């Protein structure tokens, strides 16, 4: 019962906050503008790609990370200690419930706007050439973008927990995330950058369900594992100051402009899901060690 009560309380506080309300209104307005601008001229996949631009590239990452910062920072910590953490509640219960509330609020705003728009784009007759967008592609795209939003919330959560001061945490987050595409490129991890994901959206939207359920799926898993191992090796080489020749050639055609045959949803899920999980566990550990 305590975790459920905290989740409901935090979610209520978030949905009542001016930041979430303004963000929701801004998201609706921007989505309608993009939809109207592309309605009669753009095919479904590029239009959905354009609609996802604010979530993947700019500017919603700022708000999503800011929403993650607040629960255990600044003056909020006093009321938290006085009111909730002095009751029979563990810190794990509180932090997990607060994190879940933030993720739920962000995903609610994202899905409430994007899910109907995606359905409308796919099924409406708009007078443009047919685009082979698949149900799997739409679901996978929305899920991957949702996972990226979850990762951003968790990153904000971790930095807020570590730094305690909301303003400092916000500045650190912005300066950490803005150059992320460049940093991931330096370590040959472009596949995980939001910009690459944005470029890969049309390919993913057109991917048929059968393509991921072919009999050679184990081989595909092996490729994923090999690719992850190669990227980890490249990352370590760069950290240790050694050069990594021909790293890009090993990736096949994935990094060729606008060609994304090598796109792997599994790899993307692991690439964002595991760091999000790691950040959440680190937040729990840090908060559990802290004096209130």
């Amino acid at each position, binding site marked *: *019962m*305590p975790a*459920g*009560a*905290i989740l409901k*309380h935090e979610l209520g*506080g978030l949905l*009542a906050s001016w930041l979430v309300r303004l963000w929701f209104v801004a998201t609706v307005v921007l989505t309608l503008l993009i939809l109207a601008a592309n309605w009669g001229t753009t095919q479904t996949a590029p239009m959905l790609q354009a609609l996802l631009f604010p979530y993947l590239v700019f500017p919603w990452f700022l708000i999503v990370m800011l929403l993650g910062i607040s629960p255990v920072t600044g*003056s909020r910590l*006093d*009321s938290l*200690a*006085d*009111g*909730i*953490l*002095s*009751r*029979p*509640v*563990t*810190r*794990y219960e509180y932090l997990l419930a607060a994190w879940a509330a933030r993720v739920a609020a962000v995903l609610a705003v994202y899905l409430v706007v994007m899910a109907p728009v995606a359905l409308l784009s796919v099924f409406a007759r708009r007078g443009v050439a047919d685009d082979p967008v698949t149900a799997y592609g739409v679901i996978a795209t929305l899920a991957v973008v949702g996972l990226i939003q979850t990762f951003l919330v968790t990153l904000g959560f971790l930095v807020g927990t570590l730094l305690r001061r909301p303003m400092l945490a916000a500045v650190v987050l912005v300066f950490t995330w803005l150059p992320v595409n460049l940093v991931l490129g330096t370590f040959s991890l472009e596949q995980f950058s939001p910009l690459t994901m944005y470029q890969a959206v049309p390919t993913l939207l057109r991917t048929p369900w059968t393509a991921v359920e072919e009999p050679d799926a184990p081989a595909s898993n092996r490729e994923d594992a090999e690719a992850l191992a190669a990227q980890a090796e490249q990352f370590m080489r760069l950290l240790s100051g050694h050069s990594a020749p021909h790293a890009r050639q090993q990736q096949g055609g994935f990094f060729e402009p606008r060609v994304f045959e090598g796109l792997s949803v599994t790899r993307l899920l692991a690439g964002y899901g595991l760091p999000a999980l790691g950040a959440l566990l680190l937040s729990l550990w840090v908060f*559990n*060690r802290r*004096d*209130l």
Partner: protein
Amino acid sequence: MNLAIRTEHLTKVYGGRVIAVNDLNLTVPEGAIYGLLGPNGAGKTTTIRLLLGLQRPTAGTAEVYGQPAGVNATNVRRAIGFLPTNPSFPGHLRPIEYLDLLGKLCRLPREVRQPRLTSLLRAVGLTGATEQRIQTFSTGMCTRLGIAASLLADPPLLLWDEPTAGLDPAARRFTLNLIRELAPARTVVVATHILGDIDQICDHVGVMLEGRMIFSGTIQQMRRQLSGDEISLELEGPDDAVARLVEAAGGLSDMAVELRPPRTLAVRIAEPGRRAAALSELLCHVDGSGCSLHAIRSGRNETEHAYLQLLQEDQAHGFNRFDIRLPNAMDAGRSDPQA
């Protein structure tokens, strides 16, 4: 004697720089109204937060009803009703919503939670404010809400930190009366630096200074131990007459006399059995000195004086305050003034 609270060598050092609690051995008997007394920065609040598990001790242990306190010790917090100094609440909630949330955190079923929170709001006089958001509450109303929150789960131990801070006289009177009413069924620990509160409600007292416990016992023990048989005579009259009186009183047997500004004669009678006789002799000298007697006060009633004397004595002990004995040896050697 069953103990509600027991700490052994409890120590809290912030960042390796500030000693907030210094080797604290605290025992609070079950059913006591225990006043945790000390100047600002003495470590009272930190001690309470260590008991609640809001902070981690640097060394030592704390137990509540025999269970170790800690960050995730929910069973300990279930037994405690905590009222912080100037409590801070989520301002966007209304009192009923807030108490309902706390009730859920305490795992109270709905059929218990709802009647209890409404009856508590009535008891603390907030029935008329249930429509308001907490952010519009005055300090007194916040304290009342904090009191209701601390009593919601009907805990056997109440830890109230400065419960009368910032209250007007009526609200202060209400809070002190409430503590008296609650006391028979519960153990109450009141941390404060307001001596008047301690005097009115507490039967036990612990005096903290610079993170250390410099006295722990009943309030009568503190007064007896420190003020002893001191009697204060408040005089009025010319300075030379007062000086003559001091000189004459100094000659009386079994009596030490000290003049305190402006014209108070502090008299300590060495032999308790001769108090009346010695005082009678002294009063005869007062009559003959040309001074008029304004008031006579017994040191036994002056908690404030005893408290200040404790602080002064502790400062005067200097390096003697250092106790080199090992924890195990201290367990055997340190005696509880209660015992």
